[in-house]
Protein backbone atom coordinates (compact mmCIF):
# COMPACT_ATOMS: atom_id res chain seq x y z
CA UNK A 1 0.00 0.00 0.00
CA UNK A 2 1.09 3.55 -0.56
CA UNK A 3 3.60 5.00 -2.96
CA UNK A 4 7.32 4.81 -2.45
CA UNK A 5 9.06 8.21 -2.59
CA UNK A 6 12.44 8.60 -4.23
CA UNK A 7 13.20 11.93 -2.61
CA UNK A 8 12.81 13.57 0.78
CA UNK A 9 11.39 16.74 -0.83
CA UNK A 10 7.81 15.57 -0.81
CA UNK A 11 5.33 17.65 1.17
CA UNK A 12 3.11 16.14 3.82
CA UNK A 13 -0.42 17.21 2.90
CA UNK A 14 -3.86 16.92 4.37
CA UNK A 15 -4.55 13.58 2.72
CA UNK A 16 -1.38 11.92 4.03
CA UNK A 17 -2.56 9.31 6.48
CA UNK A 18 0.84 7.99 7.41
CA UNK A 19 4.52 7.89 6.58
CA UNK A 20 6.56 4.74 6.79
CA UNK A 21 10.32 4.92 6.97
CA UNK A 22 12.31 1.80 6.24
CA UNK A 23 15.69 1.87 7.92
CA UNK A 24 18.58 -0.12 6.48
CA UNK A 25 16.26 -2.02 4.18
CA UNK A 26 18.03 -4.59 2.09
CA UNK A 27 16.27 -5.18 -1.18
CA UNK A 28 16.26 -8.98 -1.34
CA UNK A 29 17.56 -10.74 -4.39
CA UNK A 30 14.90 -12.26 -6.60
CA UNK A 31 15.16 -16.02 -7.00
CA UNK A 32 13.42 -18.40 -9.39
CA UNK A 33 9.77 -19.26 -8.76
CA UNK A 34 9.64 -22.70 -7.15
CA UNK A 35 5.86 -23.05 -7.58
CA UNK A 36 5.32 -23.41 -3.82
CA UNK A 37 1.93 -21.73 -4.30
CA UNK A 38 2.10 -19.80 -1.03
CA UNK A 39 1.00 -16.73 -3.04
CA UNK A 40 -2.05 -18.65 -4.29
CA UNK A 41 -2.87 -19.72 -0.74
CA UNK A 42 -2.70 -16.22 0.75
CA UNK A 43 -4.30 -14.15 -2.02
CA UNK A 44 -7.53 -12.68 -0.62
CA UNK A 45 -8.87 -12.18 -4.15
CA UNK A 46 -8.39 -15.79 -5.19
CA UNK A 47 -5.85 -14.91 -7.86
CA UNK A 48 -2.82 -16.91 -8.90
CA UNK A 49 0.04 -14.38 -8.59
CA UNK A 50 2.64 -16.97 -9.62
CA UNK A 51 0.98 -17.52 -13.01
CA UNK A 52 0.24 -13.83 -13.57
CA UNK A 53 3.79 -12.80 -12.77
CA UNK A 54 5.12 -15.30 -15.32
CA UNK A 55 2.75 -13.95 -18.00
CA UNK A 56 3.79 -10.37 -17.24
CA UNK A 57 7.45 -11.35 -17.26
CA UNK A 58 6.96 -12.84 -20.74
CA UNK A 59 4.94 -9.82 -21.90
CA UNK A 60 1.84 -11.95 -22.45
CA UNK A 61 -0.56 -9.28 -21.19
CA UNK A 62 -3.73 -10.73 -22.71
CA UNK A 63 -3.15 -13.92 -20.74
CA UNK A 64 -2.37 -11.89 -17.62
CA UNK A 65 -5.73 -10.15 -18.04
CA UNK A 66 -7.45 -13.48 -18.49
CA UNK A 67 -5.95 -14.65 -15.17
CA UNK A 68 -7.38 -11.57 -13.48
CA UNK A 69 -4.47 -9.18 -13.07
CA UNK A 70 -6.93 -6.25 -12.99
CA UNK A 71 -8.61 -7.73 -9.91
CA UNK A 72 -5.41 -7.46 -7.86
CA UNK A 73 -5.87 -5.16 -4.86
CA UNK A 74 -2.10 -4.79 -4.29
CA UNK A 75 -2.32 -5.88 -0.67
CA UNK A 76 1.17 -7.38 -0.84
CA UNK A 77 0.37 -10.70 0.84
CA UNK A 78 1.85 -12.66 -2.06
CA UNK A 79 5.13 -10.78 -2.12
CA UNK A 80 5.41 -11.01 1.67
CA UNK A 81 4.98 -14.77 1.70
CA UNK A 82 7.08 -15.54 -1.38
CA UNK A 83 10.07 -17.68 -0.32
CA UNK A 84 11.92 -16.71 -3.51
CA UNK A 85 11.55 -13.01 -2.67
CA UNK A 86 9.95 -12.23 -6.03
CA UNK A 87 8.51 -8.67 -6.04
CA UNK A 88 5.12 -9.93 -7.16
CA UNK A 89 3.27 -6.67 -6.49
CA UNK A 90 5.76 -4.87 -8.69
CA UNK A 91 5.10 -7.31 -11.55
CA UNK A 92 1.33 -7.18 -11.06
CA UNK A 93 1.27 -3.36 -10.95
CA UNK A 94 3.29 -3.24 -14.15
CA UNK A 95 0.96 -5.82 -15.71
CA UNK A 96 -2.08 -3.73 -14.80
CA UNK A 97 -0.68 -0.55 -16.31
CA UNK A 98 0.27 -2.39 -19.49
CA UNK A 99 -3.18 -4.01 -19.78
CA UNK A 100 -4.79 -0.57 -19.40
CA UNK A 101 -2.42 1.02 -21.90
CA UNK A 102 -3.05 -1.68 -24.47
CA UNK A 103 -6.84 -1.58 -24.01
CA UNK A 104 -6.87 2.20 -24.59
CA UNK A 105 -5.19 1.89 -27.97
Amino acid at each position, binding site marked *: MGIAQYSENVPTIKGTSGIMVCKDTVIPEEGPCVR*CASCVDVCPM*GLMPTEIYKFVDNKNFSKAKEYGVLDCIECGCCAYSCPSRIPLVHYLKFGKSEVWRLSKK
Partner: protein
Amino acid sequence: MKELLAVSASPHTRGKIDISLAMKMVIIALLPSFIFSVHLFGLRALYITLISIITCIVCEAIMQRMLGKKITITDGSAVLTGLLLAFNLPPGVPLWLPVVGSAFAIIFAKQLFGGLGYNFINPALAGRAFLMASWPLAMTKEWLAPAGGTLSGIDGITSATPLNLLQNPGNYGVPELIIKQLNNIPTIKNLFFGKIGGCIGETSALLLLIGGLFLIIIGIVDYRIVVGYLGSFVLLAFVLPTNGNLLFHLFSGGLFLGVFFMATDWVTSPVTKKGRWIFGIGCGVLTIIIRIWGGYPEGVSYSILLMNVFTPIIDRFTKERVFGDRKAKKEVKK
Protein backbone atom coordinates in the same frame (compact mmCIF):
# COMPACT_ATOMS: atom_id res chain seq x y z
CA MET B 1 18.98 17.18 -3.83
CA LYS B 2 21.70 15.00 -2.32
CA GLU B 3 20.76 11.46 -3.15
CA LEU B 4 17.80 9.57 -4.47
CA LEU B 5 16.17 6.98 -2.25
CA ALA B 6 15.69 3.39 -3.32
CA VAL B 7 12.14 2.92 -4.54
CA SER B 8 10.34 -0.40 -4.75
CA ALA B 9 6.76 -1.54 -4.72
CA SER B 10 5.31 -2.51 -1.37
CA PRO B 11 5.56 -4.64 0.77
CA HIS B 12 8.91 -3.59 2.17
CA THR B 13 9.14 -6.41 4.65
CA ARG B 14 9.29 -10.08 3.86
CA GLY B 15 8.20 -13.31 5.50
CA LYS B 16 10.51 -15.58 7.43
CA ILE B 17 10.49 -18.61 5.14
CA ASP B 18 12.83 -18.43 2.20
CA ILE B 19 13.99 -21.20 -0.09
CA SER B 20 17.10 -22.21 1.79
CA LEU B 21 15.25 -22.20 5.13
CA ALA B 22 12.51 -24.39 3.68
CA MET B 23 15.08 -26.82 2.27
CA LYS B 24 16.85 -26.92 5.64
CA MET B 25 13.56 -27.67 7.39
CA VAL B 26 12.84 -30.58 5.05
CA ILE B 27 16.36 -31.91 5.64
CA ILE B 28 15.84 -31.60 9.41
CA ALA B 29 12.53 -33.46 9.11
CA LEU B 30 14.33 -36.27 7.29
CA LEU B 31 17.22 -36.53 9.77
CA PRO B 32 15.50 -38.83 12.32
CA SER B 33 14.81 -41.40 9.59
CA PHE B 34 18.38 -41.05 8.36
CA ILE B 35 19.90 -41.62 11.80
CA PHE B 36 17.61 -44.59 12.34
CA SER B 37 18.59 -46.11 9.01
CA VAL B 38 22.29 -45.80 9.89
CA HIS B 39 21.45 -47.68 13.09
CA LEU B 40 19.57 -50.33 11.08
CA PHE B 41 21.86 -50.88 8.13
CA GLY B 42 25.20 -49.74 9.53
CA LEU B 43 27.73 -47.34 8.05
CA ARG B 44 26.91 -48.44 4.51
CA ALA B 45 23.73 -46.37 4.60
CA LEU B 46 25.80 -43.38 5.70
CA TYR B 47 28.33 -43.85 2.88
CA ILE B 48 25.65 -44.17 0.20
CA THR B 49 23.86 -41.06 1.43
CA LEU B 50 27.03 -39.00 1.66
CA ILE B 51 28.18 -40.10 -1.80
CA SER B 52 24.80 -39.23 -3.23
CA ILE B 53 24.69 -35.78 -1.62
CA ILE B 54 28.25 -34.89 -2.61
CA THR B 55 27.67 -36.00 -6.21
CA CYS B 56 24.54 -33.85 -6.38
CA ILE B 57 26.37 -30.77 -5.10
CA VAL B 58 29.33 -31.27 -7.46
CA CYS B 59 27.08 -31.87 -10.49
CA GLU B 60 24.98 -28.82 -9.67
CA ALA B 61 28.07 -26.62 -9.42
CA ILE B 62 29.55 -27.97 -12.66
CA MET B 63 26.29 -27.62 -14.59
CA GLN B 64 25.63 -24.09 -13.35
CA ARG B 65 29.19 -23.15 -14.24
CA MET B 66 28.83 -24.62 -17.73
CA LEU B 67 25.45 -22.99 -18.33
CA GLY B 68 26.82 -19.65 -17.15
CA LYS B 69 24.46 -19.31 -14.24
CA LYS B 70 25.03 -18.20 -10.69
CA ILE B 71 26.18 -21.13 -8.57
CA THR B 72 23.53 -21.74 -5.93
CA ILE B 73 24.69 -24.90 -4.19
CA THR B 74 24.21 -23.29 -0.78
CA ASP B 75 20.43 -23.11 -1.08
CA GLY B 76 20.17 -26.75 -0.04
CA SER B 77 18.13 -28.00 -2.96
CA ALA B 78 20.96 -30.18 -4.30
CA VAL B 79 21.57 -31.59 -0.82
CA LEU B 80 17.90 -32.45 -0.51
CA THR B 81 17.82 -34.15 -3.91
CA GLY B 82 20.85 -36.24 -2.95
CA LEU B 83 19.35 -37.15 0.40
CA LEU B 84 16.00 -38.15 -1.10
CA LEU B 85 17.64 -40.19 -3.86
CA ALA B 86 19.75 -42.06 -1.29
CA PHE B 87 16.59 -42.71 0.72
CA ASN B 88 15.19 -44.45 -2.36
CA LEU B 89 18.12 -46.85 -2.80
CA PRO B 90 18.52 -50.28 -1.23
CA PRO B 91 21.33 -50.17 1.36
CA GLY B 92 23.30 -52.93 -0.34
CA VAL B 93 23.81 -51.29 -3.74
CA PRO B 94 27.37 -50.90 -5.07
CA LEU B 95 28.82 -47.52 -4.15
CA TRP B 96 29.00 -46.25 -7.75
CA LEU B 97 25.25 -46.55 -8.21
CA PRO B 98 24.29 -43.43 -6.20
CA VAL B 99 26.92 -41.48 -8.17
CA VAL B 100 25.26 -42.35 -11.49
CA GLY B 101 21.76 -41.77 -10.11
CA SER B 102 22.58 -38.40 -8.57
CA ALA B 103 24.37 -37.25 -11.70
CA PHE B 104 21.34 -38.17 -13.81
CA ALA B 105 18.96 -36.52 -11.35
CA ILE B 106 20.83 -33.21 -11.26
CA ILE B 107 22.15 -32.98 -14.83
CA PHE B 108 19.23 -34.35 -16.85
CA ALA B 109 16.15 -34.03 -14.66
CA LYS B 110 16.99 -30.67 -13.08
CA GLN B 111 19.64 -28.48 -14.69
CA LEU B 112 18.95 -29.19 -18.35
CA PHE B 113 15.35 -28.14 -17.82
CA GLY B 114 16.42 -24.85 -16.27
CA GLY B 115 17.42 -25.61 -12.72
CA LEU B 116 15.50 -25.08 -9.51
CA GLY B 117 11.86 -24.26 -10.19
CA TYR B 118 11.77 -25.44 -13.79
CA ASN B 119 12.16 -29.21 -13.55
CA PHE B 120 8.92 -30.91 -14.52
CA ILE B 121 9.55 -34.12 -12.59
CA ASN B 122 10.98 -34.70 -9.17
CA PRO B 123 14.77 -35.08 -9.75
CA ALA B 124 15.27 -37.64 -6.98
CA LEU B 125 12.50 -39.85 -8.33
CA ALA B 126 13.74 -39.42 -11.89
CA GLY B 127 17.15 -40.62 -10.69
CA ARG B 128 15.53 -43.62 -9.04
CA ALA B 129 13.48 -44.46 -12.12
CA PHE B 130 16.63 -44.20 -14.26
CA LEU B 131 18.53 -46.58 -11.98
CA MET B 132 15.53 -48.91 -11.80
CA ALA B 133 15.40 -49.14 -15.60
CA SER B 134 19.16 -49.47 -16.07
CA TRP B 135 20.22 -51.74 -13.20
CA PRO B 136 17.03 -53.50 -12.09
CA LEU B 137 18.93 -56.31 -10.38
CA ALA B 138 20.97 -53.99 -8.17
CA MET B 139 17.86 -51.96 -7.35
CA THR B 140 15.66 -54.90 -6.36
CA LYS B 141 18.01 -57.54 -4.96
CA GLU B 142 20.65 -55.74 -2.91
CA TRP B 143 18.70 -55.56 0.34
CA LEU B 144 20.31 -55.76 3.76
CA ALA B 145 18.69 -57.20 6.85
CA PRO B 146 18.09 -54.55 9.52
CA ALA B 147 19.80 -54.77 12.91
CA GLY B 148 17.76 -57.04 15.18
CA GLY B 149 15.18 -58.05 12.58
CA THR B 150 14.68 -59.83 9.31
CA LEU B 151 14.36 -58.40 5.83
CA SER B 152 10.74 -59.43 5.45
CA GLY B 153 9.64 -58.44 8.93
CA ILE B 154 8.56 -62.02 9.69
CA ASP B 155 10.67 -64.81 11.14
CA GLY B 156 12.12 -67.45 8.90
CA ILE B 157 12.04 -65.59 5.59
CA THR B 158 15.12 -63.52 4.91
CA SER B 159 15.20 -63.08 1.17
CA ALA B 160 12.31 -60.74 0.32
CA THR B 161 10.92 -57.40 1.40
CA PRO B 162 7.35 -57.39 2.78
CA LEU B 163 5.81 -56.08 -0.43
CA ASN B 164 7.75 -58.59 -2.54
CA LEU B 165 6.48 -61.31 -0.27
CA LEU B 166 2.93 -60.10 -0.58
CA GLN B 167 3.10 -60.10 -4.37
CA ASN B 168 4.69 -63.53 -4.80
CA PRO B 169 4.04 -65.48 -1.61
CA GLY B 170 4.17 -68.76 -3.54
CA ASN B 171 7.90 -68.35 -4.19
CA TYR B 172 8.81 -68.46 -0.52
CA GLY B 173 6.57 -71.13 1.03
CA VAL B 174 2.89 -71.83 1.61
CA PRO B 175 1.07 -68.71 0.33
CA GLU B 176 -1.82 -68.73 2.81
CA LEU B 177 0.49 -69.08 5.81
CA ILE B 178 2.77 -66.26 4.68
CA ILE B 179 -0.08 -63.89 3.96
CA LYS B 180 -1.59 -64.62 7.36
CA GLN B 181 1.78 -63.97 8.99
CA LEU B 182 2.22 -60.71 7.08
CA ASN B 183 -1.09 -59.37 8.28
CA ASN B 184 -0.72 -60.18 11.96
CA ILE B 185 0.07 -57.63 14.62
CA PRO B 186 3.82 -58.32 15.21
CA THR B 187 4.56 -57.79 11.53
CA ILE B 188 2.53 -54.60 11.40
CA LYS B 189 4.45 -53.42 14.46
CA ASN B 190 7.74 -54.18 12.72
CA LEU B 191 6.57 -52.21 9.71
CA PHE B 192 5.46 -49.24 11.80
CA PHE B 193 8.64 -48.96 13.83
CA GLY B 194 10.88 -49.84 10.91
CA LYS B 195 12.39 -53.19 11.89
CA ILE B 196 12.22 -54.38 8.28
CA GLY B 197 14.41 -54.31 5.23
CA GLY B 198 13.84 -51.84 2.46
CA CYS B 199 15.28 -48.71 0.94
CA ILE B 200 17.51 -46.62 3.19
CA GLY B 201 14.97 -44.03 4.22
CA GLU B 202 11.64 -45.75 3.92
CA THR B 203 11.66 -48.33 6.70
CA SER B 204 10.30 -46.49 9.72
CA ALA B 205 6.77 -45.26 9.11
CA LEU B 206 6.70 -43.65 12.55
CA LEU B 207 9.73 -41.38 12.05
CA LEU B 208 8.59 -40.34 8.58
CA LEU B 209 5.16 -39.54 9.98
CA ILE B 210 6.70 -37.32 12.68
CA GLY B 211 8.86 -35.54 10.11
CA GLY B 212 5.92 -35.07 7.75
CA LEU B 213 3.61 -33.69 10.42
CA PHE B 214 6.35 -31.29 11.50
CA LEU B 215 6.54 -29.95 7.94
CA ILE B 216 2.76 -29.59 7.70
CA ILE B 217 2.61 -27.71 11.01
CA ILE B 218 5.31 -25.18 10.05
CA GLY B 219 3.54 -24.69 6.72
CA ILE B 220 6.10 -25.98 4.25
CA VAL B 221 4.13 -29.02 3.12
CA ASP B 222 0.57 -28.64 1.90
CA TYR B 223 -1.99 -30.78 3.72
CA ARG B 224 -4.22 -31.13 0.63
CA ILE B 225 -1.80 -33.39 -1.22
CA VAL B 226 -1.12 -35.48 1.90
CA VAL B 227 -4.80 -35.89 2.81
CA GLY B 228 -5.84 -36.56 -0.80
CA TYR B 229 -3.07 -39.11 -1.28
CA LEU B 230 -3.58 -40.99 1.99
CA GLY B 231 -7.37 -40.72 1.80
CA SER B 232 -7.75 -42.21 -1.65
CA PHE B 233 -5.07 -44.81 -0.87
CA VAL B 234 -6.75 -45.96 2.36
CA LEU B 235 -10.17 -46.07 0.72
CA LEU B 236 -8.99 -48.16 -2.23
CA ALA B 237 -6.81 -50.46 -0.08
CA PHE B 238 -9.94 -51.09 1.99
CA VAL B 239 -12.32 -51.64 -0.93
CA LEU B 240 -10.24 -53.45 -3.55
CA PRO B 241 -9.34 -57.13 -3.22
CA THR B 242 -5.76 -57.43 -2.02
CA ASN B 243 -3.74 -59.88 0.04
CA GLY B 244 -2.52 -57.37 2.57
CA ASN B 245 -4.77 -55.62 5.03
CA LEU B 246 -5.12 -51.86 5.32
CA LEU B 247 -2.44 -51.28 7.96
CA PHE B 248 0.02 -53.47 6.08
CA HIS B 249 -0.41 -51.40 2.93
CA LEU B 250 -0.23 -48.14 4.84
CA PHE B 251 3.04 -48.83 6.66
CA SER B 252 4.89 -50.88 4.07
CA GLY B 253 7.11 -49.71 1.26
CA GLY B 254 7.91 -46.08 0.65
CA LEU B 255 4.38 -44.77 1.03
CA PHE B 256 5.03 -42.30 3.86
CA LEU B 257 8.30 -41.13 2.32
CA GLY B 258 6.45 -40.54 -0.95
CA VAL B 259 3.40 -38.92 0.57
CA PHE B 260 5.17 -36.45 2.84
CA PHE B 261 8.42 -35.71 1.04
CA MET B 262 8.09 -36.56 -2.66
CA ALA B 263 4.54 -35.86 -3.75
CA THR B 264 4.52 -32.56 -1.87
CA ASP B 265 7.61 -31.27 -3.68
CA TRP B 266 6.86 -27.63 -4.43
CA VAL B 267 8.16 -27.48 -7.96
CA THR B 268 6.40 -30.52 -9.36
CA SER B 269 2.98 -30.28 -7.73
CA PRO B 270 0.09 -28.09 -8.90
CA VAL B 271 -0.26 -24.53 -7.65
CA THR B 272 -4.04 -24.41 -7.45
CA LYS B 273 -5.85 -25.67 -4.36
CA LYS B 274 -8.27 -27.85 -6.32
CA GLY B 275 -5.36 -29.09 -8.42
CA ARG B 276 -3.50 -30.22 -5.32
CA TRP B 277 -6.49 -32.31 -4.25
CA ILE B 278 -6.63 -33.91 -7.70
CA PHE B 279 -2.88 -34.48 -7.67
CA GLY B 280 -2.97 -36.23 -4.28
CA ILE B 281 -5.95 -38.38 -5.14
CA GLY B 282 -4.40 -39.35 -8.50
CA CYS B 283 -1.18 -40.41 -6.75
CA GLY B 284 -3.11 -42.57 -4.29
CA VAL B 285 -5.16 -44.27 -7.00
CA LEU B 286 -2.11 -44.97 -9.18
CA THR B 287 -0.11 -46.31 -6.22
CA ILE B 288 -2.72 -48.87 -5.29
CA ILE B 289 -3.29 -49.85 -8.93
CA ILE B 290 0.42 -50.52 -9.42
CA ARG B 291 0.68 -52.38 -6.12
CA ILE B 292 -2.26 -54.71 -6.81
CA TRP B 293 -2.20 -55.21 -10.58
CA GLY B 294 1.21 -53.89 -11.66
CA GLY B 295 4.43 -55.78 -12.27
CA TYR B 296 6.34 -53.98 -9.51
CA PRO B 297 5.65 -54.68 -5.85
CA GLU B 298 5.87 -50.95 -5.06
CA GLY B 299 4.11 -48.15 -6.92
CA VAL B 300 4.78 -44.96 -4.97
CA SER B 301 7.62 -43.59 -7.09
CA TYR B 302 6.02 -44.22 -10.48
CA SER B 303 2.63 -42.90 -9.39
CA ILE B 304 4.23 -39.63 -8.27
CA LEU B 305 6.27 -39.38 -11.48
CA LEU B 306 3.15 -39.90 -13.58
CA MET B 307 1.22 -37.26 -11.67
CA ASN B 308 4.21 -34.87 -11.97
CA VAL B 309 3.80 -35.08 -15.73
CA PHE B 310 0.10 -34.26 -15.40
CA THR B 311 0.75 -31.21 -13.21
CA PRO B 312 0.72 -28.54 -15.98
CA ILE B 313 -2.57 -29.90 -17.34
CA ILE B 314 -4.12 -29.98 -13.87
CA ASP B 315 -3.01 -26.38 -13.32
CA ARG B 316 -4.51 -25.27 -16.61
CA PHE B 317 -7.94 -26.76 -15.95
CA THR B 318 -8.33 -25.90 -12.26
CA LYS B 319 -7.93 -22.15 -12.19
CA GLU B 320 -8.70 -20.52 -8.88
CA ARG B 321 -12.08 -18.79 -8.71
CA VAL B 322 -11.42 -15.06 -8.54
CA PHE B 323 -13.34 -13.30 -5.78
CA GLY B 324 -16.50 -11.97 -7.47
CA ASP B 325 -15.62 -13.23 -10.94
CA ARG B 326 -17.74 -12.89 -14.06
CA LYS B 327 -19.74 -16.10 -13.62
CA ALA B 328 -20.82 -15.05 -10.14
CA LYS B 329 -21.76 -11.58 -11.40
CA LYS B 330 -23.96 -12.99 -14.15
CA GLU B 331 -25.85 -15.10 -11.66
CA VAL B 332 -26.48 -12.05 -9.51
CA LYS B 333 -27.80 -10.09 -12.49
CA LYS B 334 -30.34 -12.76 -13.30
